């Protein structure tokens, strides 16, 4: 019995992390380049393979074959540890995301924890060490400044990120991501209560704090993943390349891919919490409960729906990057501490009052 669980978990890890998320990371780099090119009236990488789809492979080979240069003045052990510390937490957070409902009687989540969102935040908060270490171990000024900036930015936005999902958890009364998705499949997505119980006045009133939460959550996610318009730790006009200035070859690639992996996981979490995870709109093909049996083709459709939503959000991330200019650092901190922190707190109180009034 125990060995069966371990084998099932191993298969899920290999399929979802190494065969789905990692290629998705590579493809999102390609998508970023193509979309940015189209936005700027260019063409983008279209030479390798059909539509340039194999560009990611070419990039990977290039990164692996480049000279792996370690400068003389760095603190070697930490310098080598830092890229791994960026990539590993980003991939570890995959563990609790429900990729689908069920396939062949097996839940499509690697670890069905009762503390899903907390686990994601806990592990994601560890990824700041990679950046801190990279900045400190590089032993030169620009990486150091980038590391310091990134640390304070991530700590600041973790607070509003955590507070922004509290109203949702109050509405769901549940910390298990699988049950949250099941609830949304039955009663309408948090942002789109158009069917089930959500179609009542209660659902529509509660959609107001959820919408505020969604905006705070998405903005904080941009800041947490160091994406434009909040990519101050690595803004090239001021800091050359920020914390990965001294890195080259695959070590640099790990930082680069870690950023995209964090983006994918962030999109996955946003989809799970706000956009109904693997569920189809209007409650189509919704299983009876989290434990109910699901036909295999329903399971496949659910997995496809989840990844379609995630890809949609990634495209949103990319378009935002090429739309908005970079914030100034004091503006960023002001936004985090003066606005989002207060609004998120107020939102929690508002949701509590609404829930009390509506019950």
């Amino acid at each position, binding site marked *: 019995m125990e060995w069966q669980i371990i084998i099932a978990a191993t298969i899920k890890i290999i399929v979802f992390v190494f065969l789905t998320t990692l290629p998705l990371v590579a493809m999102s780099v390609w998508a970023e380049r193509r979309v940015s090119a189209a936005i700027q009236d260019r063409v983008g990488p279209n030479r390798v393979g059909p539509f340039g789809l194999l560009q990611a492979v070419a990039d990977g080979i290039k990164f692996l074959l480049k000279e792996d240069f370690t400068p003389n003045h760095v603190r070697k052990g930490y310098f080598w540890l830092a890229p791994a510390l960026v990539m590993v937490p980003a991939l570890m957070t995959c563990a609790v995301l429900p990729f689908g409902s069920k396939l062949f009687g097996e839940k499509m989540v690697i670890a069905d924890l009762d503390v899903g969102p907390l686990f994601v935040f*806990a592990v994601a908060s560890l990824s700041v060490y990679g950046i801190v270490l990279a900045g400190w171990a590089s032993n030169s000024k620009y990486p150091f400044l980038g*590391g*310091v900036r990134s640390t304070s930015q991530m700590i600041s936005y973790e607070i509003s990120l955590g507070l922004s999902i509290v109203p949702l958890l109050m509405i769901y009364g549940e910390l298990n991501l699988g049950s949250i998705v099941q609830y949304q499949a039955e009663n309408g997505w948090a942002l789109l209560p158009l069917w089930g119980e959500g179609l009542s006045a209660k659902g529509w009133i509660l959609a107001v704090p959820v919408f505020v939460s969604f905006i705070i959550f998405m903005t904080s996610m941009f800041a947490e993943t160091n994406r434009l318009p909040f990519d101050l730790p690595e803004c090239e006009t001021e800091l050359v390349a920020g914390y990965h200035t001294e890195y080259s070859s695959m070590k640099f690639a790990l930082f680069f891919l870690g950023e995209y992996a964090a983006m994918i996981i962030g999109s996955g979490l946003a989809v799970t919490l706000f956009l109904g995870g693997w569920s189809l709109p209007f409650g189509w093909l919704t299983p009876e409960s989290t434990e109910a049996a699901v036909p295999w083709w329903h399971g496949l459709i659910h997995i496809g729906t989840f990844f379609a939503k995630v890809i949609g959000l990634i495209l949103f991330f990319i378009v935002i990057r090429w739309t908005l200019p970079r914030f100034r650092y004091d503006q960023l901190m002001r936004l985090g501490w003066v606005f989002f922190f207060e609004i998120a707190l107020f939102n929690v109180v508002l949701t509590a009052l609404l829930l009390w009034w509506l019950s």
Partner: protein
Amino acid sequence: MTFLFYIFAALALIGGIGVVVNRNPVSAAFAMIVSFLGLAALFIQLDAYLVGILQILVYAGAIMVLFVFIIMLLDVEEEEKRRFPIIGITSSFGVAIAFTLLVSVILKRSEIGAKPLPKLAEVSGPGSSDVHRIGEMLFSQYWFPIQIVGVLLLVATVGVIVLSKKELR
């Protein structure tokens, strides 16, 4: 799954030793994080998911980040040059041995371990996770201590702001 216990217990212990032995403050801080991660894994093995996750979220993810942040900004070279006095080393060993003796004596005399405790999942009952249980406890049985602690932390925060502002003038 006993071997997992040994792995993570060893991780926590190695981290703890690393904190004491390392001369470089940043290395010491990272050894402490390793120790916290080991501890969190031990909590999770005891089915106490919330406690384990909070151990990572609060200690490794927030407090230690600030520690590392401060250490990085300070000059660490001086600390590396400082030598350990022999009296300090011997006395610390003495304290460690005395503490171990104390703990072993207490453990031997107490009832802990005499009978196996029920699993946490069985205690909390079906349909409610340990998150629910802890939340209910905090907001019913222990609401007053929680408020007191909150006020205490607020006082500390205000105090820090006052002190740091004075220095500026």
